């Protein structure tokens, strides 16, 4: 009955025409929202507090490069360490030995469940617990271990899923050729698993980049600050948010080329 009425009102309108009109209406609403927002914003105040050009210039010349380098160095080290630990954890979770499975499961659930900040604060207390414990490459070593612990808990699950996504026949073919289970894993399963894991591992790398902003909790000297801590410190000193905004944008300098690179790798 209702379809009959609709046809009576608009007898010659095709479904595609109707979809086009609906799309047009959405664009109009979107544009209206943008215009109202643009009119409503106090541009002068925003520009002054969030994007003071003079202060932005000073942020860039007075330490942004070094902070950017620290963010990159912290993250890469943490990611590499985390990836190695995560591979070991994933193999433990898939092990025939029940004790290995329990240890790996407990580790993953514990460190994945805790807030990263809490893990970092706890890690800062580690030298208290173990008298005379020195983690080498200070301060990098401590930061790498901290990010590695958190990163590995997340990545272990990704790697386990990747290994399980490789068809069973691959392991059978490798074993039927006389390869040991270890050789089959290294030469046949893992190379295919890592291919499957590239997109989710990229996600975790980007999350780790952002988690690196929490390493101040371990206790770093000013000269070792990464982007966020550096930006926040300068913003406090100048009573202006601009340095933090610049530091935030600097993260995109890392993540955008990374996303681009991974998309290329996936297409290959």
């Amino acid at each position, binding site marked *: 009955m209702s379809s009959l009425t609709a046809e009576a009102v608009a007898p010659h309108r095709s479904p595609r025409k109707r979809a086009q009109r609906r799309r047009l209406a959405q664009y109009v609403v979107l544009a209206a929202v943008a215009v109202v927002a643009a009119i409503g914003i106090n541009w002068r105040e925003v520009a002054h507090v969030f994007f003071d050009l003079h202060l932005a210039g000073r942020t860039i010349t007075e330490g942004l490069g070094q902070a950017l380098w620290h963010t990159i160095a912290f993250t890469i080290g943490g990611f590499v360490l985390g990836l190695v630990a995560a591979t070991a954890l994933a193999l433990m979770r898939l092990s025939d030995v029940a004790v290995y499975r329990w240890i790996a499961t407990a580790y993953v659930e514990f460190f994945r469940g805790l807030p990263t900040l809490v893990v970092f604060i706890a890690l800062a207390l580690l030298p208290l617990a173990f008298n005379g414990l020195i983690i080498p490459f200070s301060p990098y070593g401590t930061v790498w271990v901290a990010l590695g612990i958190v990163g590995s808990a997340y990545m272990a699950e990704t790697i386990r899923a990747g290994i399980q996504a490789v068809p069973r026949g691959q392991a059978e073919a490798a074993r039927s*050729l*006389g390869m040991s289970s270890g050789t089959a894993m290294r030469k046949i399963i893992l190379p295919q698993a890592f291919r499957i894991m590239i997109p989710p591992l990229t996600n975790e790398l980007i999350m780790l980049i952002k988690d690196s902003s929490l390493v101040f909790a371990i206790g770093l000297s000013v000269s070792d600050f990464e982007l966020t801590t550096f930006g926040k410190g300068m913003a406090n000193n100048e009573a202006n948010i601009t340095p933090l905004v610049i530091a935030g944008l600097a993260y995109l300098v890392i993540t955008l080329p990374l996303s681009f690179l991974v998309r290329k790798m996936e297409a290959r």
Partner: protein
Amino acid sequence: MTATPTTTEAIMEHNGEQPPTIVEIEGLHKSYGDHHVLRGVDFQVTRGEVVCVIGPSGSGKSTFLRCINLLETPQAGSIRVRGTELNDPDCDIDTARRHVGMVFQQFNLFPHCSVLENCTIAQQTVLKRSKQEARAIALANLERVGLADKVSYRPAQLSGGQQQRVAIARALSMEPALMLFDEPTSALDPELVGEVLTVMRGLAEDGMTMIVVTHEMAFAKEVADRVIFMDGGVIVEQGEPASVIGNPRQDRTREFLRRVLDPTHV
């Protein structure tokens, strides 16, 4: 043992000796939970023999084949390959498997390796052959299956028939004493079956010991020295292909062959 198997066999036949037994299986039982798949299988293969295993799906023939290189661990029974007992916790299964080549229904080529690497990787990691030696042996076997011009291709760039021929070359590159084929043509488009069977026929003529689980009755009839009919987890009937396929004695065999050879007949 420096002579090739065919030559040794020829000499032995000349002397009136029996060729040696390569596989000896006694009282093989395998179950998955409550499902009893193999219910006591006894079986021998002598060197140079081609055995085709036929039977309805679910009869246990694939499971039986996979037990021979311990891809399935049986609950009971003895599996001796060239005198080595495999169903024994002390057995070094990796070493034992080197002498047994396996070809799978789904090919199971390594997709991240080229055709050549598929045939060299186990030679280098397992047999510790040098890169050059492994390459030479792989090339010779790829030549044998007619794919020497595809060495740098990836498996995904090949047809199913070509992939299965690479899988055969990969197994041959380990110079096995025995080849197992698990329905090697069942995943192929009909027009690609012939090229794989031709390669297998060539292997049989060269004296390779082969156990072939297959639905290709014409191939079994022509190439096999012995045909085994399995049903319900046991060997129901075995003998020369002309008698098992041509003139079966058991009702179950007759019933199966009637359905296979004339699928439209109800």
